[in-house]
C-alpha cells in the first residue's frame, strides 16, 4: 500500500466526521456537507496533491471544501434542506437552551452570503488571518475585511451584540486646515 493511500484511509476513518461538521457550517445542509467532504477528499488525493501527513491533508481538504462550498452556493447548486429547526423536547436541563442557541446560530448563518459565510467560518473556526483567508478564497484583503464586517453586522443582529466582537476601526487623526475660499 502506498503512502498516500494510508494517509487517505486514516483521514477518512478518523477525521471525516469533523470535516462533515466543518462543511456543514459552510453549507447548512447535512447531505451537501457529506457530499462535499467526499468529493474534496477524492479530488485532493486523485490529483496528486496528497500530503504525507494526515494533518496536512486535512488542511488541504478543508481549503478545498471552503472553495467548493462557495462555488456551489454561488452557482445555485446547493439545495437547502429547509429543515424545521425546532427544539426537540428533552428531559435534560439546559438541553432546550442549547438547541435553541444552535437553531439561532444556523438561522443567523443562513442570512449570510456564501462568501460572507466562508469568511466567517475561516475566521472564527480556523482562526486564520485576513491574508490567509484571502489566499484561500483567492480574494483581496480588503474584500475579506468587507465580507467579515458585513457578516459581523448580520450575526450581531441575529445573535446579539455579545456574540460577535467587531474590532474597532483605528481612528486616523485628521487635521483641518483653513480653506482659502
Amino acid at each position, binding site marked *: 500500500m502506498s503512502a498516500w493511500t494510508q494517509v487517505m484511509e486514516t483521514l477518512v476513518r478518523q477525521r471525516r*466526521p*469533523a470535516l462533515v*461538521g466543518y462543511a*456543514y*457550517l459552510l453549507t447548512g445542509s447535512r447531505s451537501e456537507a457529506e457530499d462535499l467532504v*467526499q468529493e474534496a*477528499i477524492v479530488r485532493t488525493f486523485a490529483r496528486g496533491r496528497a500530503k504525507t501527513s494526515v494533518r496536512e491533508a486535512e488542511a488541504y481538504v478543508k481549503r478545498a471544501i471552503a472553495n467548493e462550498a462557495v462555488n456551489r452556493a454561488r452557482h445555485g447548486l446547493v439545495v437547502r434542506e429547509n429543515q424545521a429547526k425546532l427544539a426537540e423536547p428533552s428531559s435534560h436541563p439546559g438541553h432546550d437552551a442549547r438547541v435553541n442557541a*444552535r437553531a439561532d*446560530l444556523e438561522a443567523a448563518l443562513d442570512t449570510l452570503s456564501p462568501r460572507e459565510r466562508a469568511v466567517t467560518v475561516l475566521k472564527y473556526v480556523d482562526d486564520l488571518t485576513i491574508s490567509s483567508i484571502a489566499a484561500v478564497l483567492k480574494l483581496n484583503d480588503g474584500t475579506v475585511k468587507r465580507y467579515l464586517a458585513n457578516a459581523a453586522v448580520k450575526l450581531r443582529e441575529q445573535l446579539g451584540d455579545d456574540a460577535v466582537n467587531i474590532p474597532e476601526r483605528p481612528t486616523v487623526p485628521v487635521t483641518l486646515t483653513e480653506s482659502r475660499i
Partner: protein
Amino acid sequence: MDVSMQLRDLASAVGDDFALNAPDDASKLVGRARRGRMVWTTGVGTAVVGSAATLAFGGPALATVLTTGPELAPASSTSILTSESATSTPSEDALASVSPTESAEPGENHESTGTPGAGVIDLSGGASGSDDDNGTSDESGDRDRDQDQLRTEDRDQLQEQEQEQEHAQEQEQEQELEHAQEQEQEQEQEQLRVEDPELDD
C-alpha cells in the same frame, strides 16, 4: 458565548451525529481516488509530453517555416516550386524535422535537409539565420549576404534554364510546322501529278 465557540460546538455536534452512522467506505473512496489519480496522471503526463515534444521537435520546424516562409512564397518564385530542383517545401522540411532522429540537434536538422537545390538553400539559410542569435553580428551579416547572393544566383540560373527550355520548345514547334508544310506541299504536288499525268512529261 461568542460565535467562535458556537460554531465549533455546532460543527462537533454535526460531526458526532455523522459518526454514529458513518459509512465504512474508506476503501471505496481510495479506489475512486486511485482511478482519478490514474486519469489525472495520464492526462497531465500526456499534456506535458505533448508540450515538450512540441517545443523540442515542432519549435525548430516552426521557426524554420516562419523564417523561410516569406522568401519561398513570392509571386515570382512560383516557377521555382514547379521546377525539378525545388523539391523541398516548408511543409516537407517541417515533416522532416519532426522525426526524432533528425531533429535531436538543430545542426543535424539543417544538414538533413541539405540536398542541392534552390529551395533547400533557402531553407537552410533561414534556419541558420535563426541560430545567429548566438553568434556575432558581423558573422550573421556575412551569412545573410552570402545567402542572399546564393538565392539571387539560384533564381537567375532557374530563369535562364526556363528561357532555354522555352527557346527549345519554340524551335521544335517551328521545325514541326516547317516539316508539316513541306509534307503538305509534297502531297499537293502528288495530287497534281495524278490529275494531270502530262505534267510528268
